[in-house]
């Protein structure tokens, strides 16, 4: 155990499996024949297309504007022609519209996306300019949740953020995309962090790196040395150390209140990859059009870390790295929180951190909860997943609400540890969804009651 290293209460230690791809430098994936740029890249309203079918676009050109404040703009990942705009599968399962671009092979940048500022000038920008450049570049959180970054950078005036945390934990097994970015681009990570600290008016920036990545820690430490207010700290190796609330607890010893956001604890957490994207957007005016994706798992012939354009499909990645016989699961993201996929036409999103092909067999039938308490011990959100699971099994959604189901971060520790093999997180996700539907129904009924009588139901 890494005694003495900061961490949180609970958690677990799944096999890391990072040796498959951790020592492989980032490779550039050639641009495929068709790119599917989903209009629903992250949390929030889908983007609105601003280009028409048949139109020529160049890399970095705005092709869809944000559909609201909590929404991110979308840019052409390469130069080419818009083939169509229509339905496209989405990793979350619902269908979303996408702009399909046929690359012309030239991969030419749009002039708007080449506004080199230079390091000095970029670091001298004020907070407002940084946020507006981040917003224009369509940056979302690249750790997985894909929350628009400019929203996180614009907290309400009564919320004071004093610390920006860069998340370099990458606690999900198999994934090494962030690790490679930390090794290969530490300078840009730290410069991005300086911009983030400035953007929210914080006084310090901390990079948290799990203790199983000493090389990354060392390189970042070298970069932050001499920069006022910045530090790089090691945290214990434990899943889910990279969850933002757990990282805040480890580094600042502050608890994000129930139902609250990191800003309620005076902190802002960003992924290291996002920091690089922020630096690129501000210093070079380059919008987010590519990201590093780890392609790994027992059933991938040549695992690796690929720098690919937003919009390549999972099928393109699999074709590039080869799939072995016996593959049973396709997962977008890590094995703990990632989403199982079935359709190779699903495109890579701004928040896609990995693609895993595993031979994991079907889980055994679950049995009744034996109340061993392993899930309670492991829950980093201090919930009682055993109780929540039985409530879910009996469809007692209201009771789940009383047991704070909405504080669940869906990290999957409970399900991973459960000796009765109960699909606890699935019940919790269903419970959250049912509670949402119940709320909608209750609000509709309330509205109906409040409506003046005598008005026809039509």
């Amino acid at each position, binding site marked *: 155990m890494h005694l003495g290293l900061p961490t949180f209460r609970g958690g677990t230690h799944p096999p890391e499996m990072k040796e498959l791809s951790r020592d492989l430098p980032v490779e550039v994936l050639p641009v495929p024949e068709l790119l599917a740029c989903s209009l629903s890249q992250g949390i929030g309203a889908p983007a609105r297309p601003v280009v028409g079918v048949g139109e020529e676009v160049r890399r970095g050109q705005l092709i869809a504007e944000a559909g609201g404040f909590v929404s991110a703009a979308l840019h052409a990942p390469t130069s080419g022609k818009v083939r169509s705009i229509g339905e496209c599968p989405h990793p979350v399962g*619902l269908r979303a519209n996408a702009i399909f671009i046929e690359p012309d092979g030239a991969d030419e940048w749009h002039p708007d996306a080449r506004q080199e500022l230079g390091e000095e000038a970029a670091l001298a920008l004020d907070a407002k300019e940084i946020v507006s450049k981040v917003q224009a570049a369509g940056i979302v959180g690249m750790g997985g949740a894909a929350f628009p970054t400019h929203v996180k950078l614009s907290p309400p005036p009564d919320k004071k953020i004093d610390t920006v945390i860069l998340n370099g934990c990458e606690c999900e097994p198999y994934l090494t995309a962030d690790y490679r970015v930390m090794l290969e681009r530490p300078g840009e990570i730290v410069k991005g962090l300086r911009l983030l600290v400035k953007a929210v008016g914080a006084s310090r920036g901390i990079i948290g790196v799990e203790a199983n990545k000493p090389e990354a820690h060392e390189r970042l430490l070298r970069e932050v040395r001499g920069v006022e207010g910045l530090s790089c700290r090691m945290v214990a190796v434990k899943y889910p150390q990279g969850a933002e609330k757990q990282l805040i607890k480890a580094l600042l010893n502050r608890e994000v209140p129930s139902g609250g956001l990191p800003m309620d604890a005076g902190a802002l957490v960003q992924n290291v990859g996002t920091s690089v994207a922020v630096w690129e957007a501000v210093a070079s005016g380059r919008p987010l059009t590519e990201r590093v994706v780890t392609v790994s798992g027992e059933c991938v012939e040549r695992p690796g870390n690929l720098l690919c354009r937003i919009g390549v499909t999972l099928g393109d990645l699999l074709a590039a790295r080869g799939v072995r016989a016996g593959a049973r699961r396709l997962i977008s993201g890590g094995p703990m929180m990632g989403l199982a996929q079935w359709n190779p036409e699903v495109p890579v999103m701004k928040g896609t951190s990995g693609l895993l092909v595993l031979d994991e067999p*079907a889980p055994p039938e679950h049995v009744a909860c034996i109340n061993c308490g392993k899930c309670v011990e492991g829950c980093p959100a201090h919930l009682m997943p055993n109780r929540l699971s039985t409530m879910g099994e009996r469809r007692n959604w209201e009771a789940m609400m009383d047991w704070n189901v909405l504080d669940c971060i869906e990290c999957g520790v409970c399900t991973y540890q459960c000796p009765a093999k109960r699909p606890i997180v*699935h*019940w919790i996700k269903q419970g959250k969804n049912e509670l949402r539907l119940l709320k909608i129904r209750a609000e509709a009924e309330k509205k109906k009651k409040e409506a003046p009588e005598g008005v026809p139901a039509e």
Partner: protein
Amino acid sequence: MFAANFLLLLAAAESGANMIETVAWGGGVMAAIGGALGLLLFVASRAFAVQVDPRIEAINAALPGVNCGGCGYPGCSGYAEAVVNEGVAVNLCAPGGAEVAGAVAGVMGVAVDDSDRKVSVLACRGTREFTSDKFEYFGVKDCRAANLVHGGAKSCRFGCLGLGSCVEACPFDALVMGADGIPHVIEELCTGCGKCVTACPRDLFTLRGEKQNVVVVCASHDPGKIVNRACKVGCIGCRKCEKTCKFDAIHVVDGLATIDYDKCKHCGACVKACPRGIILNFRGARRARKERLEKAETAAAREAR
């Protein structure tokens, strides 16, 4: 008894017999306290009695007592209170049917608006034979949970997921999961309570009334090409039904045949025209059931005689 006790007490006090005296005193005092409290309770029960409308109890007795909630009130007693206090309709009890509606109406002294018996019908015939799975689903065996994972494994995004959330929700065992992978409604047992309607994540159940004999049993709004790939018994929007109908009662709306029951005459022309066989006519089944019920009734009457 009190008097006897008292006499004993007095006697004991006079005789000066120590032990008997003590016991008797104790008993006497307890009896006195008991009597006083009893009197108090008696007075309180009269003074603070809660007046219950006898009609609520009468209605409660007439209701089936299954507490299905199909009426929209919390259980049978909740409905009984609502009928008396809020004046809601007397025929909301689906399981009870006309008989209970009559009884409730009798208590309330009103006439029943003859309630239309409703039965549930599933708008999908996509059995395993006609559909396929997009992927292997390992999660919670519940349609609502499965629907959250890429909209379920079934090839059709509108069709029945076949995990039986409706079967579990039915309080009357009127739904059974068939070996073919979709649930079947046992019309004899269905009371039209509507539990399956809310349980289904895809809104595939409708409560079919007396006038809705002809039903389209598909819910897919996808274009014909996609439907064809997903399911062999899905509505492809070919409009044959529309062209056959003499009463302008069936139209393909948003890729799905939809019947206007104000115009439908249950002639069954569309049933024959549908190339997918997904328009069903329940008129025959309904008549057969009616005849069967009448026969049973006359037999019962004969036996009673």
